[in-house]
């Protein structure tokens, strides 16, 4: 992580003369060059003002350019590279410049000017306050809209650092600054600084502390490692000092830039000239992903550019490069400006996947194309492409096996997977843009959160799977069936709600994507590849269930662990982890019956289609509610998801009911599991056991004495 020096002094030119004093300019240049050479990646030009603030005090600091740096130090590039390598900072890190205002505040009236609406303060990146008495310090800690409190430690303290005030400031996210150049002045000052600053270090315990140079000349600048070690004189540990020099600065800058340049800290506001155009077909999202939270927009210098500028031998290349090259992105766009239709038309990811799903159903031949389109739309995630390719593989297998009569089934498989693709992206996006940068991103994450809600909803259906109910709720097989019925009722009600139905399986498969183990997908393949010569469904179920139960047990453990490790801020983790496992289990189950259904269809394909439907009805007829759903299904061909769910569940039920012997074996298993589960449940009773044992021991002792 790069190191920052957020205090390079800048002397305001005298009011009469417009230009910065030549000496001041060269000093600033030298300081900046030295800081850059020593391996710092960011500086802030600090301007201090005293007395009443006026319009004239708004930011006029000219940021340094590459050319001027090169002029001062011709061999800067190699030296910077050398030092960065030794510090472990990547050479490509841009050198950033910020502007900073330090206000010396003495009176309460001046305090009141430190509010968020002050246009003078808005023109600077960083606002620091130097309190000169107790009242001002308290106000700065508790109320003032500042980023940093810079205290003068060189003299006798003008106020007392009170612990509650410091804590209040830390709570509000205000940083305290210590300038190490004070330590270098002379012995007397050093003594004073150490004694004063130690108190601050003690109160803050290294939290919200920033160390900067504040150097009046080049000889007072030190390298990052030296500064970190020097802070041991103030009682700051190496890690804390390192954080104070790098991480804390970075966090503060990111925070204040977000506050400054984002609307409500979430939406980036950018000025676009009328000539520039804006379309979502072009990779705006890529641009957003490249958005640099630390860039102040200008004054960033890349080492490569520095080298180039030097190679140009003229050594006068007045060009300040930006961290993000917006112009190059915007150049290649069409000329028709920003239109709302663009967003609506080319927003494949925010829309619910239902629309695509219907397409897929109508012409299954074009499915691969659609999938390809999905792949194209999700270029930015290699992982996702992987999953999609996997999906393609699955599909091709489907194609080889399934006859044209089973169009619907294929459609189902496709929808399921497509949903997984699109929603998978939703989730990934949510992970990546935790600080949701643009409007689009916001909506996406909203969608994702919807999905998570739906997951919760569908997880109720997840209790359908017998293995789970076996494990968690030890019940008799009959009860299991009952529960299945009730939950299936719920699902049938839910199926009216299309979105839920879609997101349900989608989220199932999304879990496939996130968990690397991918047991479930392996199961899929297995089931699909299963040969036709199963005579009955029940047989297959018998063969499948035990093995799968084992699988899922194993899976549950691993996935839970992984989920806990990959901390996702937006989702309630512990709940989700359990839910995901449920869903995974369900997905494993729901997919396998589907495959069975395919085989089944193939078996039946010699007969007419109607008989097939009848067959389905027959399988359904175990449950009244499912008859309704099946009818619904027949009527509405468009909602495939309904069907898919319905079918999977019906077959599921069929499985539960038809294989009685299977239930027996499973109940045997349940007992075994119950045995396994018991010890932790008994733990609360351990004190009693201990008591009894204690009694026994005491009795023994009595015996011994006797």
């Amino acid at each position, binding site marked *: 992580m790069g190191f920052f020096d957020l205090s390079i002094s800048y002397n305001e030119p005298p009011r009469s003369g417009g230009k910065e004093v030549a000496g001041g300019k060269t000093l600033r240049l*030298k300081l900046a*060059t*030295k800081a850059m*050479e*020593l391996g710092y990646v960011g500086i802030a030009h600090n301007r201090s003002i005293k007395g009443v603030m006026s319009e004239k005090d708004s930011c006029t600091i000219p940021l340094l350019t590459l050319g001027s740096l090169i002029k*001062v*130090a*011709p*061999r*800067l590039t*190699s*030296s910077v590279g*050398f*030092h960065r390598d*030794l510090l472990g900072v990547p050479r490509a890190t841009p050198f950033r410049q910020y502007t900073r205002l330090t206000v010396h505040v003495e009176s309460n009236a001046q305090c009141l000017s430190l509010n968020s609406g002050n246009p003078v303060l808005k023109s600077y990146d960083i606002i620091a306050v130097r309190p000169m008495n107790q009242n001002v310090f308290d106000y700065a800690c508790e109320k003032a809209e500042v980023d940093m409190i810079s205290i003068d430690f060189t003299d006798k303290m003008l106020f007392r650092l009170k612990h509650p005030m410091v804590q209040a400031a830390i709570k509000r996210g205000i940083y305290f600054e210590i300038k190490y150049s004070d*330590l*270098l002045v002379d*012995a007397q000052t*050093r003594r004073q600084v150490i004694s004063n600053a130690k108190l601050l270090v003690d109160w803050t315990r290294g939290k919200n502390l920033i160390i900067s140079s504040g150097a009046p*000349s*080049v*000889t007072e*600048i*030190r*390298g990052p*490692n*030296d*500064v970190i*070690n*020097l802070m*041991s*004189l103030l009682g700051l540990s190496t890690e804390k000092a390192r954080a104070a020099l790098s991480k804390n600065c970075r966090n503060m800058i990111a925070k204040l830039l977000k506050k400054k340049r984002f609307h409500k800290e979430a939406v980036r506001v950018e000025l676009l000239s009328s000539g520039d155009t804006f379309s979502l077909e072009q990779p705006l999202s890529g641009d957003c992903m490249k958005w640099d939270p630390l860039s102040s927009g200008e004054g960033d210098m890349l080492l490569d550019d520095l080298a180039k500028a030097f190679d140009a031998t003229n050594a006068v290349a007045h060009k300040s490069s930006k961290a993000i090259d917006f112009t190059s992105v915007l150049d290649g766009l069409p000329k028709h400006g920003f239109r709302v239709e663009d967003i609506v038309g080319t927003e494949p990811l925010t829309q619910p996947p239902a629309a695509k799903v219907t397409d897929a159903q109508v012409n299954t031949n074009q499915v691969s194309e659609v999938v390809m389109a999905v792949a194209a739309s999700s270029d930015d995630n290699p992982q996702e492409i992987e999953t999609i390719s996997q999906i393609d593989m699955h599909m091709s297998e489907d194609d080889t096996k399934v006859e044209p009569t089973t169009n619907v089934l294929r459609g189902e498989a496709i929808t399921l997977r497509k949903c997984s693709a699109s929603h998978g992206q939703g989730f990934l996006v949510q992970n990546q843009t935790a600080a949701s940068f643009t409007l689009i991103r916001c909506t996406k994450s909203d969608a994702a959160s919807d999905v998570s809600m739906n997951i919760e909803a569908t997880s109720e259906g997840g209790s359908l799977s017998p293995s789970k109910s076996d494990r968690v709720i030890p019940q008799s097989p009959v009860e299991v069936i009952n529960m299945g019925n009730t939950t299936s009722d719920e699902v049938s009600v839910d199926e009216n709600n299309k979105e839920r139905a879609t997101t349900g399986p989608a989220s199932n498969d999304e879990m496939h994507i996130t968990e690397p183990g991918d047991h479930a997908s392996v199961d899929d393949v297995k089931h699909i590849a299963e040969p036709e010569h199963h005579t009955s469904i029940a047989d297959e179920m018998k063969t499948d269930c035990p093995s799968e139960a084992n699988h899922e047990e194993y899976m549950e453990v691993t996935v839970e662990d992984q989920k806990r490790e990959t901390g996702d801020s937006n989702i309630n983790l512990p709940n989700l982890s359990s839910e995901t496992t449920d869903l995974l289990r369900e997905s494993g189950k729901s997919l396998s019956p589907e495959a069975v259904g395919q085989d089944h269809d193939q078996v039946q394909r010699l007969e007419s289609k109607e008989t097939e439907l009848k067959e389905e009805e027959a399988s359904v007829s175990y449950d009244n509610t499912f008859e309704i759903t099946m009818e619904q299904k027949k009527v509405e061909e468009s909602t495939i998801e309904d069907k898919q769910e319905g079918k999977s569940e019906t077959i599921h039920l069929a499985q539960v009911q038809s294989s009685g012997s299977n239930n027996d074996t499973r109940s045997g298993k349940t007992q075994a599991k119950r045995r396994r589960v018991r010890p932790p449940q008994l733990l609360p009773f351990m004190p009693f056991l201990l008591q009894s044992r204690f009694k026994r021991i005491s009795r023994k002792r009595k015996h011994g004495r006797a």
Partner: protein
Amino acid sequence: MVGFKNRYMLMEVFLDPDKDLLGEGTPIILTQFNLSKAIKDSILVNFGECGLGSSLGSFQVKYVNPITKLCIVRSSREEHRQVWSAITLVKSIGNCPVVLNLLDISGCIRACKETALKCDKEKFEQSSKSLSEEEIRQMNSCLEKIKLLEN
């Protein structure tokens, strides 16, 4: 196991950084003697007689390269942070303002030697364009010296 442990600090000296930023001119010639004197003075000022006394046992400037302005300072492990702080607080050698910057710190001379050789070469390449024959000869002798360093 060795009971007594040392730390070897590879430092880089910027002579008169205010004048020219990359140490091109040489207002004074850097030697082991004047460098160690400056550091000892700094220890005395900052940590007193006791601090100086406890660190003097193992303190030594092992190597100085006047061309690339690299030096290796040895100190005992217990005191090395103190010595390092004192080195950081050095402001001048004689009348010449200096800035000392740590490049590498290691626990054995061998590792330090390797890094020093690497840094020496890199810095030499940076400034090799403007060097005379005499200086190049001196540089080579320094490189020979660094290879012979022990403890």
